[in-house]
């Protein structure tokens, strides 16, 4: 026989969750009716976009390459800066004050979305790839800087002592005791960040960093939906290709022992 008492601890939280969700949906107007209406319109719109305008394909290759280059440069500069920030933010290498300030800066950077950084940078540098590269580089510091700093703090302290015990200075401790130990993590997280940066470079392109994201935004703006479809195909291929490349590289490095 059903006993309310028995299921009380599950039913009450469920009712509360459903009520809160329903309330939130009503407040922001996200109802099921609207969802189905939107889906229907979306499918109809997608029908209008088909077929893609293949004549625009060749002129979009350069912007696509530009997006990849922005992501690549943003990742390389970002990773290099992240290593410096991570070394300064690690409690086992850095002075407590330097660590506190660096951790604060990393946290501050993480709390600002890349798109906000880009809007600020566009005001400073103007439209183009440059603000995109800087925004993605800064974006890396928030994520890679924190992850690497935490990993450095986990390094066996005796590994550091071992370099210090032969008279090695701080720089030598970093180059011989710390970096060799965290290189697998640097490679792995940098590749992961590159995948994220490829997606972000498209998004940032639409806001003013150029590249294929700009082409997509421009095509929609000019109501050239077939052209926009071509841009979407290129973007999907780009993101998928990058993920495959990153997966292949990781596998290869693992096989050669670099990521052991």
């Amino acid at each position, binding site marked *: 026989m059903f006993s309310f008492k028995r299921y009380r601890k599950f039913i009450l939280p469920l009712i509360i969750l459903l009520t809160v969700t329903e309330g939130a949906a009503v407040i922001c107007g996200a109802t099921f009716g609207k969802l189905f209406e939107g889906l229907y319109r979306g499918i109809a719109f997608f029908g209008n976009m088909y077929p893609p305008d293949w004549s625009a394909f060749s002129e979009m290759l350069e912007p696509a390459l530009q997006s990849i280059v922005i992501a690549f440069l943003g990742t390389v500069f970002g990773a290099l800066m992240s290593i410096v920030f991570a070394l300064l933010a690690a409690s086992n290498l850095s002075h407590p004050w330097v660590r506190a300030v660096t951790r604060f800066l990393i946290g501050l950077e993480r709390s600002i979305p890349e798109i906000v950084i880009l809007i600020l940078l566009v005001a400073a540098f103007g439209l183009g790839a440059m603000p995109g590269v800087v925004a993605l580089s800064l974006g890396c510091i928030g994520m890679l800087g924190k992850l690497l700093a935490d990993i450095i703090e986990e390094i066996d302290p005796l590994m550091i002592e*071992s370099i*210090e*015990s*032969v*008279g*090695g200075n701080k720089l030598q401790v970093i*180059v*011989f005791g710390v970096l060799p*130990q965290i290189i*697998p993590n640097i490679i792995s997280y940098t590749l992961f960040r590159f995948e994220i940066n490829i997606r972000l470079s498209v998004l940032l392109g639409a806001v003013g960093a150029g590249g294929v994201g700009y082409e997509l935004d421009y095509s929609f703006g000019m109501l050239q939906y077939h052209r926009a479809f071509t841009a979407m195909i290129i973007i999907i291929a780009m993101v998928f290709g990058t993920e495959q490349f990153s997966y292949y590289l990781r596998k290869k490095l693992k096989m050669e022992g670099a990521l052991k």
Partner: protein
Amino acid sequence: MLEVKNLTKTLPNGRKLLDGISFKVKKGEFVGILGSSGAGKTLTLRCLNGLLKPDSGSVIIRDELDRPFDICKINKRELRRVRQKIGVIFQGYHLVKRLSALENVMIGKLGQINTFRSLFYGFTDAEAEQALKALDKVKMSQLAGSMTGNLSGGEMQRVAIARAIFQSPTLLLADEPISNLDPSNAKTIMKMIKPLSEHMPVIGVFHQPEMTAKYCTRVIAIKEGQIIYDGDPKLSNKRLEEIYGEELELIEQQEHLLAAIAK
């Protein structure tokens, strides 16, 4: 020569970890420090190269020009300079696992070469050759290019000894160098360390009275932060009981077991 005077270290709760440790060690001596767990052996050793600052006392070491330095009182820069000539073989072979055996040996001279050059792994051919010779002395030259993390425990400890040889120190410290090794590897390592004491004082912390009796020239026993014995390495059962107390039975069992395995 090394002179340790009245080392003390006390915890905030008043427990004395080191309580007036004093001894002298000269070239040609291979001193084994014995004691039960927590007696203060490793703490004493860590004070000898400045990895730990005692509350009071001094550790006087002389450089190549016979100038005395008190490790407990010198500044960081001088400490780095003095450490260039103190070789350390750590418990658990604290080598950098992702560097090759040869690179780990070369780390021994980091303090003695130009910092800028060292940052780019810019060791000279002569230095590489010397490092290889050091590896050859411990019969590890064939594995010079292997990643250290892939070596066995005994091999890693031999690399650590090669590093100390390459460093050409004036004092060698060994913190439980054979603790993690099987009896046959432990013997090999002791045989490799012993001849080094002809050129410099060697001080090691050990848990194996049998080994110290066989290879050391002198034994210092520490109990509750104080030296309770300093003399001949061959210790009587009564003395061992005094040093280890209840732990002795466990050590004897271990040694019998290891001897049986070795046979």
